[in-house]
């Protein structure tokens, strides 16, 4: 195992993405249907932001508590009008595809992120990396060597 391996070799490259003008309803369906926790919001190959399942849960909660009488119906209406660009986290921490795995580990250690977007030299989104990707690399590699 090479802990300095570039993240491009261990990241997830088959990404589910959202457009900035997609409704939150559509984003939520994508998260659930694909069993993912985070979805990057992109315009072409440029990443504009990221939305997590937690973001959506928090938003649903606040809207229902303070803005609605008939909670479910109001939520449905709100969610079909608010767009991904309006709730995404815009201040992103991104990794370069040539950054080492240890940089990703250090960022995850802060426990503020559970998924990081990976971009190339042109700032185009090329993948996402999570703690489970890093574990898979470290421990599958060990098993292969031990065999």
């Amino acid at each position: 195992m090479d802990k300095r391996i570039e993240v491009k070799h261990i990241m997830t490259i088959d990404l589910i993405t959202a457009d900035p003008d997609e409704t939150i309803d559509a984003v939520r369906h994508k998260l659930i249907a694909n069993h993912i926790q985070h979805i990057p919001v992109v315009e072409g190959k440029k990443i504009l932001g990221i939305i997590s399942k937690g973001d959506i849960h928090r938003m649903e909660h606040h809207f229902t508590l303070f803005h609605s009488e008939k909670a479910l119906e109001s939520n449905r209406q709100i969610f079909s009008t608010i767009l991904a660009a309006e709730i995404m986290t815009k201040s992103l921490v991104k990794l370069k595809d040539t950054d080492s795995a240890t940089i990703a580990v250090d960022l995850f250690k802060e426990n503020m992120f559970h998924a990081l977007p990976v971009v190339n030299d042109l700032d185009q989104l090329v993948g996402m990396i999570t703690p489970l990707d890093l574990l898979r690399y470290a421990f599958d590699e060990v098993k292969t060597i031990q065999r």
Partner: protein
Amino acid sequence: MDSSKPVSTIMTRTVVIIKPNDPIDLVHQLFEKNSFHHIPVVDHNKLVGIVSKTDYLKIRHMLATTWSGETICQDMYKDLVVEDIMTHEPLIIEPADTIGLAADIFRANALHALPVVEDGELVGIVTTHDLLNYAYQESF
């Protein structure tokens, strides 16, 4: 890196815990004040469940969408206790189990934390962060 080492060598031993009958607001406060995302639930020294930040957020959302209006929602919230929202009988690992086994469990179940239990008693918690630290900081 030696994945056959026991998890007891990398687990966190000082763990913040809650009791099954603690109010759900205590969960909220603990997640607000700390950076961890999982709290083991212990009753008379025995592990009975675990609450993740995701569990907590889901319940908060379900409450809000099931009950319209702020007052009834806050009343429901006050009445809920940890036992109502925790995951009962969570997956666990023993201190003598290997780090490699912990990695397999995390990957197979997409989990991020495992309580470490010996004879039913909680003795620590091991997370994906602990494994990443071990694999990427201390090896080679």
